[in-house]
């Protein structure tokens, strides 16, 4: 449980790792937009090409990027099956009948198959590009980026800094809490607790002996953490500086231009060439 493949930082020293996280966040948004705007395989191929370049530049192993899909494998398959079974389109893309099989509301058509492939590719690209962000950006940089992008909210007196800090601390606490939950579960199992059988009410009741100790230790934890932060001169946002200052450099400029080119390209493709679908 401690090592979920999706959403983990992959330490390496690369061009992509060093990019400004704000840019990466914006780039991700642009990329997702491009993927949604791309209505044909050329558009997707352009996106996939750009993603491939990014992955190669980032030194994250390709296999690791593909593995990110595993997390949503079920969703991908489900979408594909729905498309194949329920599409009644009669467009033919290759020789042979446009409709292979039809029964009541079900049908297998050429269009359905093509659309299914298209959607699967689109979903896979979405997940892979999102996971590239988390692979190449430390949680701290990511929250810093979010904090910086949300700065306008400060004018509305929303404590953006605190939000970012809390996100950071939550991320660093996940492995600790997972370990602790495991320990408490084992301790209660050793005392005969049963979390696996019985109806829903029994099971909810069975969680109490885990939740309460977890709550109690979290309160202790919060107190000690608070003391540790105070002792290290924490006083909110007052006079605080940042070690990892987000700076927009030439690398960021190149990436920005690339990203802009991609989005424009996909839009142009859509407007002038039209889709094959």
């Amino acid at each position, binding site marked *: 449980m401690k090592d979920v493949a999706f959403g983990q930082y992959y330490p390496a020293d690369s061009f992509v790792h060093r990019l400004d996280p704000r840019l990466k966040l914006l780039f991700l948004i642009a990329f997702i937009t491009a993927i949604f705007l791309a209505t044909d395989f050329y558009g997707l191929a352009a996106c996939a090409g750009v993603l491939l370049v990014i992955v190669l530049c980032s030194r994250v192993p390709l296999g690791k990027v593909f593995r990110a899909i595993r997390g949503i494998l079920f969703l991908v398959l489900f979408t594909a099956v729905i498309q194949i079974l329920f599409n009644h389109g009669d467009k033919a893309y290759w020789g042979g009948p446009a409709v292979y099989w039809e029964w009541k509301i079900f049908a297998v058509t050429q269009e359905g198959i093509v659309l299914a492939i298209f959607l699967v590719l689109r979903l896979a690209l979405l997940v892979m590009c999102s996971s590239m962000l988390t692979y190449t950006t430390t949680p701290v940089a990511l929250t810093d980026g979010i904090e910086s992008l949300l700065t306008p909210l400060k004018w509305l007196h929303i404590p953006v800094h605190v939000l970012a800090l809390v996100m*950071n601390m939550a991320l*660093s606490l996940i492995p600790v809490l997972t370990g602790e939950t495991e320990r408490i579960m084992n301790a209660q199992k050793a005392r005969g607790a049963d979390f696996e059988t019985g109806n829903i009410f029994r099971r909810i009741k069975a969680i109490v002996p885990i939740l309460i100790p977890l709550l109690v230790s979290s309160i202790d934890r919060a107190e*000690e953490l608070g003391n*540790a932060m*105070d002792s*290290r001169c*924490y006083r909110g946002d007052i006079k605080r*500086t940042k*070690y990892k200052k987000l700076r927009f450099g030439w690398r960021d400029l190149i990436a920005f231009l690339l990203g802009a080119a991609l989005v424009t390209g996909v839009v142009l493709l859509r407007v002038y060439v039209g889709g094959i679908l």
Partner: protein
Amino acid sequence: MRAIEFRDVSYTYEDGDADGDPSNAQRGGFQIKHLNFAVEEGEFVAVLGHNGSGKSTLARLSNRLLAADSGEIEVFGTPLTKKTVYEIRKQIGIVFQNPDNQTVASIVEDDVAFGAENIGLAREEIGARISFALKAVGMEQYRNATIARLSGGQKQRVAIAGVLALKPRIMILDESTAMLDPRGRREIMDVVVRLNREEKITVILITHFMEEALLADRAIVMNRGEIVMQDKPAGIFARHEELLTYNLTLPRIGMIVKGLNAGGMPVSDTLDLEKLAGEIAECVS
């Protein structure tokens, strides 16, 4: 120069106090009573006491995590008040007990940077301080490591580095070795001794491992919120019977000396293993 001085400091936990160990509240409130002591710059002082003797409260009072009810606390001649607290927190670094409860970030360097960021240092200076602090605890090669994957001793060394990044002149370790295995404990003690000798950082080590107190210049024993003994470690451990009344024991070697004396072997009250062996050898040959 005086590093820190407590003059007639008292403190009472109220019921439901956030910091009140319930066990204390249960004993009808808990008190620190008229605490008087001083630590000189560069000194290494061990504070001993059973659980609930008030030794952790002493740490929390020293940088105003808890505000004393009465009395004065001075740090390098500056009285500790609401106004000076942030200046004084720069001078006093505290490392706490649980290595999992002191990190604010998942990556080592980001966590070490936290304190230096809080006091508004420039970026380059923070970078330099991270390098200095990680080097001082022997963790430079872990700068970009994920904290969750480190051992207990390594995590605690990162916590020390996080405190060192503020360049404190006093370091308080509040039972910082209690949850570590012997290897982790040794790592921390090595670091602490080195910081005291080489960086001339004043160290206050709160512990209930009697063996760790042997490394200190001076030991303070607390019992029920009061300081009851203050002496060189050897002097403290020479007063066996008194220690027992404070629910403390001797270090193992002290127990053996005591046993030999009781059996009529006149070995001196040494805490040094080789010396003791030599004396036994003389007695039997």
